[in-house]
């Protein structure tokens, strides 16, 4: 018995040693794009630099919450991907900082100008919706064309969009509708759409998945995520509101208080190289427009000229007060409304 106990104790102590033996260099990343892309980076980044890559996949709203929670003792070095507005909030709150990287001048100038040195653009993607036309046909319903169409009572229980509390995609949708219709009318519209919503999802790509599986007929999501669903063989099509749709400029930010700045910068430099950016399309099942103009654009990526994209005011809708205010208003007035 005593020998057994000693043995057990020895094993425990030994494995504790293994736990604490950290690799020589590593970078810990909040990863907001889809899992496949994060996994691809995890596989490729160590090959390119010799540094280890650890990540947690969190949607952008959640990632911002996590940074706020760990303001004093950040456990992450870099925030990789995710919609831009929370990146701007984080930057305004002093959680992240803008750094001038070597590849800065290679980045697409229109993206650089739009975000105004708050964070580093990583990619751009257009908001739209995935449509399960088979399900719509079964119900004898037309494909929606505008944001107002989503409020048509015939779509009851057939719409999904992401919860703006957790998802940057969800916030992009709300900010887009506010920019098109004005706040008062926008919330009126959101309340009417609410009656049709089957589910508010935690992540931005999930509505596309729900549409693909036929749980809902219309899922508001970024079009590049819908493209991914189409390529995977789901019976869906994608579309965007004819009367204007929003877009995102995915971000890359350095966590300000990180003690691991050197490795963090090494990762960020790498993340902007064409080799790293083309991982998104080749392995990461993500078909955005990459920010580095030297990176080849995936052939299936949705192009800006094909959609009516609004002039999204990133500075305004990324500011702390406006964003927190809209999310709060949505949570109180829309989400909780009886259907």
């Amino acid at each position, binding site marked *: 018995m005593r020998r057994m106990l000693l043995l057990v104790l020895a094993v425990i102590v030994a494995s504790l040693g293994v*736990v604490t033996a950290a690799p020589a260099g590593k970078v810990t*990343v909040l990863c907001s794009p889809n899992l496949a892309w994060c996994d691809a980076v*995890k596989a490729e980044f160590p090959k390119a630099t010799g540094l280890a890559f650890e990540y*947690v996949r969190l949607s952008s709203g959640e990632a911002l*919450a996590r940074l706020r929670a*760990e303001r004093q003792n950040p*456990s992450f070095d870099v925030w990789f991907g995710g919609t831009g507005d929370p990146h701007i909030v984080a930057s305004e709150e002093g959680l992240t900082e803008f750094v001038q990287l070597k590849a800065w001048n290679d980045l697409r100038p229109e993206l650089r100008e739009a975000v105004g040195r708050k964070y580093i653009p990583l990619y751009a993607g257009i908001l739209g919706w995935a449509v399960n036309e088979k399900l719509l046909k079964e119900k004898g319903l037309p494909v929606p064309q505008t944001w107002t169409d989503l409020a048509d009572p015939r779509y009851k229980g057939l719409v999904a969009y992401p919860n703006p509390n*957790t998802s940057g995609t969800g916030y992009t949708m709300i900010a887009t509708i506010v920019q098109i219709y004005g706040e008062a009318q926008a919330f009126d519209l959101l309340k009417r759409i609410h009656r049709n919503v*089957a589910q508010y999802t935690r992540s931005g790509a999930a509505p596309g998945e729900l549409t693909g599986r036929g749980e809902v007929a219309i899922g508001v999501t970024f079009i590049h995520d819908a493209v991914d669903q189409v390529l995977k063989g789901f019976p869906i099509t994608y579309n965007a509101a004819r009367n204007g749709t929003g877009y995102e400029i995915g971000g890359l930010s350095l966590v300000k208080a990180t003690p691991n700045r050197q490795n963090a910068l090494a990762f960020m430099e790498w993340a902007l190289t064409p080799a790293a950016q083309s991982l998104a399309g080749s392995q990461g099942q993500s078909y955005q427009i990459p920010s580095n103009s030297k990176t080849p654009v995936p052939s299936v990526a949705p192009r800006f000229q094909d959609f009516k994209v609004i002039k999204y005011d990133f500075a305004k809708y990324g500011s702390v007060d406006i964003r927190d205010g809209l999310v709060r208003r949505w949570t109180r007035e829309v989400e*909780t409304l009886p259907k």
Partner: protein
Amino acid sequence: MASVLTVPAVRGAPNVTLLWWGGGTFAGSLLLPWHRPGRDIFAFVPGTTGLALAPSSPVMVAVLVAGLATVLLALLPRPDASRGRLAIVVAGIGSILATGYLVAAGRPLSAGPVVAILGFMSILGTGLALSGVLRVDAFLGGCILWVSVFVLAFILYPLWTVLQASVFVKGRLTLAVVVDTLTSPGFLLINNPGTPRNETAIVLWFGGFVAVLAFAMLLRRGIRRAVVVGLEAGVVGGILAALYLGYGALRNSVLLAVVVGTCATAIGFAFALLAERSQLRTRRLLGPFSILPIITPPFVLGLAMIYMFGRRGFVTYGLFGLSTGIFFGPIGVAVAQILAFAPIAYLVLEGIVQALDAALEEAAETLGASPWYVLRTVIWPLARPGLANAFLLVAIESLADFGNPIILGGGKGFLATEVFYAIIGRFNPNEAAVYGVVLLVMTLSIFLIQRYWLGRRSYVTVTGKPSGARSRALPKPLDYVVTGVFVFWALLTLSLYGSVFMGSVVKLWGFDYSFTLAHLRSLSPQGWNVFWTTTKLSAYAAVPSTLLGFLIGYLVTRTQFPGRSALEFSSMLSFAVPGTVMGIGYILAFNQGTLLLTGTSVILILAFVFRNMPVGIRSGVAAIHQIDRSLEEASTMLRANSALTLRRIVMPLVRPALLSGLVFSFVRAMTAVSQVIFLISPQHNLATTQILSYVEYGSHGRGAALASLLTVFMILVIMALYAVNRRLDMRAAREASIS
């Protein structure tokens, strides 16, 4: 007892216990680091040892002096009583100064202060024993204080921070967040602005109507009774009406808890009758089927519900061609929870039904009572405490579960999911704390209602006197009906788990049922790493959790000291409050300053240890009660101290209980969600939360693959336990693990 326990020592001889603890405390605080940089738990910073800190900190000098003073005290020839009193003073000063130093420094603590404070606790315990203040020996005195420190730091302090955060916002005492949260329509909304009628008025009118009706009906039996019962009925009627008409997280959660609690308890009771009284062979299947949902995370059933009953579900769409979202919402959540939690009710009630004395029923029948009358006047009163207990447990589990609401809830708010969004989505700890307090209050009120309903009657049937009657058979028709229900339930459970296994090896559930290993392969590397981390952390946590639980069990059954029942109550508290509340408590209490632990593996281990410790307490208490005290007394007579007695006499006798406690602590840690979802970090992710995020981010196949892996592993662990220890009383172990 005390006179037997205090080993007579030669007057004035050096006290070895004090010598060791004094020397250890001194050396530990001198040589071990007091601080660490950030989250690096095992970092050794030479600049923060007591030796390095002493020149600049008079408090540190005093702490070191207190350690040295203990050594001197142990060596100086003094009578025990006065040596004890001095030890109390020295250790008291030492521990207060060490704590004060840490609070003032506000930097994350390292090994030094842990050794120092626990060392002073041992010295204090020894002092209390020597001086005769506590009627225990030095070992048990130290144990009591150690356990108290743990319970204070890892159960009461986190709960306190929840209460505090609900009213203290940015350092100011304010009720703003409480009012704001409780008046938000997301919390509770009775009057729907979308309908022309006024629901609040309907609720009030209905409540009033029920009250008047009850009052009128009972008026003949006396005015006082009529008023009391009338008021009660009115309140219950009003609440029911509000639940029926209302909206919001509170209403959803309460309705869910009531429905799930009632259904699961009813099913559990039916199965318990079946297990004890059925004539059919199927009753043997109850064991394996009832354990399956307990050893897997509850939301696995939620995932399976989507597979089987979703809009493209195998049953709803595949077999019946229905395109319905009906199970996507509270109904689906309720079904998943009933399936997941009915076994808990069954395990509680099995013992109750077993204890029913058939002789009482026979006596009633002999006196001419109809079966219905026997049920109403004999079985019902005896089963009531068990039913109430089962209901309480299931209701708490339902309140705390958020896997199912988040997967299946269709965007409907529940209290647990609101907590989740407040922390994970908005990082508003104050709002989360308010929801936490609401959950606490609800748990407490269910508990009080249970007490009120049971009253103070005695329900003793196990008297030790042999009962003449043999176990009674169920009436044939009833037997068939209940067995039918069970078979349906078993098939449903089996097909749901089966669908998860299938889901992990088919390409795309609902569209393409062709075989693939892609999901299982995609678990590498991340899924496997997470699985391994979970197993490792759960295994680390199981040992201290069981030992600590057993120790507390021993202390509360075998020793007398002031605050004993408070200790018992607080250590069971971590089990009784919903896991979500403990989760917020941990993130609030251990997110900064001296006790910074978030983002480390240690906080997960601690969460597991203190969440599952009551499993050890329950099985420990049950096992220790069966041991005759005279065995321990004989050991003490032969001059063994209590440490030796515990190790050589008690532990070997309760080994089966310890072993099963160990396994169930492990299983509960592997399948925990509500508490740990707030505490995971990149390096320390857990299988359950990983499955949840796979499912939520749409990778159902991968989620199913990891869930299958977890389920198979848990089944293997339980089978190994059976194989290793056949004699083990499995039922007792399982009961201990849930009640």
